[in-house]
């Protein structure tokens, strides 16, 4: 893919410039970033080139990685998914059936999600620009009574109740724990990332293939170790399947069939409870 971009622009060496800073803080997550990139295509969202979009996103993440910007897991999961999507789109269409949705279907899903998010943004803008109470429109400034349907002489909202409870439980739980900023990927992190990535990707896939390239180099060892440990746990729970064709061969993962019943289901045996 690098080739594509070198051909097209010829300017991406500039990312080696150490002074270059990537501003990801302004984005509300990977979809927001994608939406922004899509707008630069200056076409209707229903007509965007998903492939070009995926390229732009991966280029962006790549640049961020080169200047060692720490990216939230969300961005990495999206990068992995887009790399996967790209490969699906570039590979000639396979026989349909067992391999889950086609690249076209996945691309349509992405375009739909972008359009839906954009629609919600517009709705939010229209909402906030309405004539709002306390800004454009006002209530009686000097009320003379407060109407309540007087079943209860006391006033409290569910929010009051829940926040009181949450505060109390938190206060009384012993929490004098300060944990130093971690340098390793915890099992929990790895598990979360794996689960989300495999929720999006249905094919057999390897970690090395999609995810690891986007991690900072110094994180790769710990991420691999944690991901492997977490994957075993996920397999045990039936949420994941693992395949390895031989010793030292790549380990393939895919989404599992779901929790396994403790005993294999035996149809029509005369079992009585």
């Amino acid at each position, binding site marked *: 893919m690098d080739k594509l971009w070198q051909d097209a622009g010829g300017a991406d060496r500039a990312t080696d410039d150490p002074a270059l*800073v990537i501003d990801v803080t302004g984005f509300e997550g990977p979809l927001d970033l994608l939406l*922004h990139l899509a707008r630069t295509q200056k076409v209707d969202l229903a007509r965007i080139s998903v492939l070009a979009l995926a390229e732009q996103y991966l280029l962006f993440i790549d640049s961020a990685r080169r200047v060692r910007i720490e990216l939230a897991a969300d961005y990495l999961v999206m990068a992995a998914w887009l790399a996967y999507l790209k490969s699906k789109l570039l590979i000639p269409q396979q026989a349909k059936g067992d391999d889950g949705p086609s690249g076209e279907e996945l691309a349509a899903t992405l375009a739909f999600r972008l359009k839906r998010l954009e629609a919600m943004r517009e709705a939010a803008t229209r*909402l906030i620009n309405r004539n709002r109470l306390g800004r454009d429109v006002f209530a009686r400034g000097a009320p003379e009574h407060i109407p309540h349907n007087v079943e209860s002489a006391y006033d409290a909202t569910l929010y009051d109740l829940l926040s009181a409870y949450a505060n109390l439980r938190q206060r009384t739980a012993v929490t004098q724990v300060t944990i130093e900023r971690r340098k390793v990927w915890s099992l929990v992190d790895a598990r979360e990332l794996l689960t989300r990535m495999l929720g999006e990707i249905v094919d057999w896939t390897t970690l090395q293939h999609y995810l690891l390239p986007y991690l900072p180099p110094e994180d790769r060892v710990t991420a691999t170790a944690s991901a492997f440990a977490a994957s075993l746990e996920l397999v045990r729970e039936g949420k994941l399947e693992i395949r390895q064709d031989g010793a030292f061969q790549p380990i393939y993962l895919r989404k599992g069939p779901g929790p396994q019943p403790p005993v294999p289901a035996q149809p029509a045996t005369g079992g009585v409870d």
Partner: protein
Amino acid sequence: MTPQEDDDDLTIADEAGEEPVAFSLAEVERIAEALVFASAEPVSEAFLAERLPRGTNVNAVMQRLVEIYAPRGVNLIRTGDRWAFRTAADLSFVIRNDSETRKLSRAALEVLAIIAYHQPVTRAEIEEIRGVQTSKGTLDVLMEAGWVRFRGRRRTPGRPVTLGTTPDFLDHFGLEELRDLPGLEELKGAGLLSGRIPPGFAIPIPVNVDELSDDEDPITQLDLEELGLLTPGGDAEE
């Protein structure tokens, strides 16, 4: 249930249950307007029905008051099943007060819109739409503002809690009911309020993917910089 039939006179039984007092329609209107006018909070029809002479058609009375106040600087409006007097929206320019309203973050605003248009909606669904986890404090802010509430639980595995908007949300944004949300029908029609891709939603996939299509320009590093995606020469730390 049928207290009739003195044309436009209604009767109200005195608390002590003595002689009923007759009220003219004008009188009933006066009481209704006093009840609503005196309150900063919207007043429910149930509350009004309880206080107005028995047999009053509350809605009809309120509709008449709406007409009477429509041309004035203070209007009678309906929000949900409640009534309130509010200053006329077109006078915003004279009495507008920016200092009073809190600024919502962009994320909070987006979450609010998603809850309003998709309700009842779970947190996982909100995150699916936004493609990002909801940071702590976002829902919190919306609940504290009194615009968002826990509604119940979805009858699906895991029984996730669903979120929705409150009556105060309607009041704050000047909506009579949720159906008045701007653009609701079009969004629904376009299938954008559902979790599934609407039938017929398709995007063209370029055949020769390595080449840019006619309406595309190659993107360059420079473009990214211009767009503020890459800021050159910033200090390289967060």
